[in-house]
C-alpha cells in the first residue's frame, strides 16, 4: 500500500508543481544565506561570503532539476514542451498542415468507418447467451428440414444440451389501425430459453403451449409493440387479431432482441409451434433447426454424431436426410459477408498506406527545410534520441489532428454506409462507434504516426552538423534537398 501513498504524493506534486518548485527554491536560498552569514561572522566581506556559500552549495539550478527528477514528472514536462513546440511548428506551415491533415483524415476516417462495420457485423458476438455453442442444423447448410427428422435429431443425439426449431410464418394484423402484413416465426417452446433471452414484459411460452390447440399465444417485438400499440403496458393478456384468428399477447421482447438472425430477420411476432399430425412428416421441409452444444462438445464431435444419425435416417427413407450440415450459428449469420468485408478493410488499409506515403514525402521535404533548427538544437546539447522524440511527438500531434477529423468523417461515413449497405448485410443496424472502434482508431493513429514519421525523423538527425549550421547561416530555409545530395 506504500507505493499507492507514494503515487498520491507524486500526483500531489504534479498538481501543485509551481509551489513545490518555489518551496525548494526558497529553502535553498535560505541555506545559502545562512551559510553566507556564518562566513560574514568570521569576518568575510558580504560578496566573498556569498561566493563561498554558493561554492559550497553547488550548482543550485542543477540541484533543482535533480530534485525535479526525483518527483518523476520530467517525461510529462518534456511531452508538454514537445507538444507546444510541435503545435507552433505546424502552425508555421499551415499549407502543409492542412494537406497532411486532410490526407490522414481521409485515410484514418475510411479505416475507422469500415472497421466499425467489420466490428459490428463480424467481430461482435451474437446477442444470445454463450453464442459460441449455438449451431444450426440445416440441409445444404441453408435449407429447412421436416418435422419427423427434427424430432429424430432431437431424440437421438447426445451432443446437444437443447435442440429447437423455427418455422416461417406471416400474418395480417388487423385492428384500429390499417391492417398490416407482418412477418413472424413459430418457435418450439424451448427455443427462446435455449438462446438465453428474457422478455422485456410478460413471459415467453411455457411447456405444453406447443401442443395443438394451445398455440394462440403470442410474443411481440419491441418495435411492433411501440408502433402498433404505443408501448401500452396493459396489452399483456389482451387479444389481438392475426389473419382472422384471436391471439393473446403474453410477452414483449427487449428492443435489441432479434430472431432469427440470418433468415426472417425482420420477424416481429413469435408464436408457439405445434406439430400436430405433421409429427410423422418426413417430406415437408419447413423447419430451421437450432441447437446448443453441450459444454465441452466440439463442433467436429457434433458433426460426426449428426452424420451418423442422418445416414441412418437416409437409409430408412432415401432422399430425406442427405447433406444435413451442422454449422455454427455465427457462421450462418456472417459467413457470406466475411470475405468481402475483409477485402474492403484491406482496401482502405492501402488507402491509408498511400496517405502515409504522401505525408511522409511532404515531411521529408519539410525536414530538409528544418536542418538548421535541428543543427542548433543538437549543438546546444540535444541528444539524437531527444530530437527524434521531438519529431515523433510532432508527428503524433499531426496524426492525432488527422484522427480527430477522421473520426468525424467516420461518424458521418458509418451512417452513410448503413444507409447504402445492401439489405442483405446482417447486423448492419448495430454499427456504432464504440469502445473497440475507438481502440482501433487509437492503434491506427499511433501506427500511422510511426509509419509516416520515423523515416523523416531518422533522416533529420543524420547529417553534418557544421555544414547544416553554415548553410542555415546563409539563408535559413534554403537547405539542400536530401535527394539532391
Amino acid at each position, binding site marked *: 500500500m506504500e507505493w499507492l501513498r*507514494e503515487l498520491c504524493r507524486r500526483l500531489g506534486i504534479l498538481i501543485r508543481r509551481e509551489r513545490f518548485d518555489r*518551496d525548494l527554491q526558497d*529553502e*535553498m536560498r*535560505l*541555506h545559502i544565506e545562512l*551559510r553566507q552569514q556564518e562566513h560574514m561572522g568570521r569576518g568575510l566581506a558580504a560578496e566573498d561570503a556569498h561566493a563561498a556559500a554558493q561554492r559550497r552549495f553547488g550548482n543550485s539550478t542543477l*540541484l533543482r532539476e*535533480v*530534485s525535479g527528477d526525483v518527483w518523476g514528472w520530467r517525461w510529462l514536462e518534456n511531452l508538454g514542451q514537445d507538444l507546444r513546440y510541435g503545435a507552433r511548428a505546424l502552425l508555421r506551415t499551415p499549407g502543409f498542415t492542412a494537406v497532411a491533415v486532410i490526407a490522414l483524415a481521409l485515410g484514418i476516417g475510411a479505416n475507422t468507418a469500415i472497421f466499425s462495420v467489420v466490428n459490428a457485423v463480424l467481430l461482435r458476438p451474437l446477442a444470445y447467451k454463450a453464442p459460441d455453442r449455438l449451431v444450426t442444423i440445416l440441409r445444404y447448410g441453408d435449407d429447412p428440414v421436416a418435422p419427423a427428422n427434427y424430432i429424430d435429431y432431437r431424440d437421438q443425439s447426445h451432443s446437444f444440451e437443447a435442440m429447437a426449431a423455427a418455422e416461417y410464418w406471416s400474418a395480417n394484423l388487423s385492428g384500429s389501425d390499417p391492417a398490416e402484413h407482418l412477418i413472424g416465426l413459430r418457435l418450439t417452446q424451448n427455443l427462446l430459453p435455449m438462446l438465453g433471452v428474457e422478455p422485456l414484459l410478460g413471459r415467453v411460452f411455457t411447456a405444453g403451449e406447443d401442443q395443438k390447440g394451445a398455440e394462440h399465444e403470442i410474443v411481440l417485438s419491441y418495435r411492433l409493440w411501440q408502433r402498433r400499440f404505443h408501448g401500452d403496458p396493459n396489452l399483456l393478456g389482451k387479444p389481438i387479431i392475426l389473419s382472422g384468428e384471436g391471439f393473446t399477447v403474453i410477452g414483449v421482447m427487449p428492443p435489441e432482441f432479434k430472431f432469427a438472425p440470418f433468415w426472417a430477420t425482420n420477424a416481429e411476432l413469435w408464436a408457439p409451434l405445434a406439430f400436430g399430425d405433421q409429427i410423422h412428416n418426413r417430406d415437408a421441409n419447413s423447419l430451421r433447426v437450432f441447437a446448443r452444444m453441450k459444454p465441452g462438445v466440439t463442433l467436429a464431435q457434433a458433426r460426426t454424431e449428426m452424420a451418423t444419425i442422418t445416414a441412418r435416417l437416409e437409409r430408412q427413407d432415401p432422399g430425406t436426410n442427405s447433406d444435413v450440415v451442422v454449422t455454427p450459428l455465427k457462421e450462418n449469420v456472417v459467413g457470406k459477408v466475411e470475405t468481402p468485408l475483409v477485402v474492403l478493410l484491406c482496401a482502405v488499409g492501402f488507402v491509408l498506406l498511400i496517405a502515409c506515403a504522401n505525408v511522409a514525402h511532404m515531411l521529408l521535404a519539410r525536414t530538409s527545410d528544418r536542418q538548421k533548427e535541428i543543427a542548433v538544437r543538437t549543438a546546444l546539447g540535444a541528444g539524437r534520441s531527444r530530437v527524434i522524440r521531438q519529431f515523433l511527438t510532432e508527428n503524433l500531434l499531426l496524426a492525432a489532428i488527422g484522427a480527430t477529423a477522421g473520426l468525424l468523417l467516420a461518424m458521418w461515413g458509418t451512417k452513410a454506409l448503413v444507409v447504402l449497405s445492401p439489405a442483405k448485410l446482417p447486423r448492419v443496424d448495430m454499427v456504432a462507434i464504440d469502445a473497440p472502434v475507438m481502440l482501433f482508431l487509437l492503434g491506427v493513429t499511433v501506427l500511422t504516426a510511426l509509419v509516416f514519421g520515423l523515416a523523416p525523423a531518422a533522416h533529420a538527425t543524420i547529417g553534418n552538423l557544421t555544414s547544416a549550421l553554415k548553410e542555415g547561416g546563409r539563408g535559413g530555409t534554403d537547405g539542400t534537398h536530401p535527394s539532391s545530395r
Partner: protein
Amino acid sequence: MTQRDEIPPGTLYMLILRTLARQGEMHGYAIANSIQQISQDVLQVEEGSLYPALQRMLLKGWVTAEWGVTAGNRRARYYRLTALGRKQLAAELSQYERVAAAIARVLQPA
C-alpha cells in the same frame, strides 16, 4: 584544517535519518551543519545534494515537512521523521553494521 571526506554513496539517507532521529525537527541547513559537527568535521555533506535527497525522502514518506520560523525570524522548512522513517533508519543501520563488520573482518591482519 582537517581533511574532509565525501560521504560514501548511499549513506546520505541514513545520516539524515539518524540526525533527524537524534534532534527532532530541523531545517536543511541545520541538518548539514549537524552532520558536519557531529562527525567532527570529517564528513562534509555536499550541501546542495541534501535537497534532492530530502525530496526523495518526502516522497517515500520517511519524513514530513512543515514551514516554520527560525530563531532569526526566517521562514524555513522543518523536516521531521515519520514512523516509516524510523523503520527505514533501523533497517539501514542494521544493514550498514553488517556490511561494516564484514569489511572489518576482511581487512583484519591475519
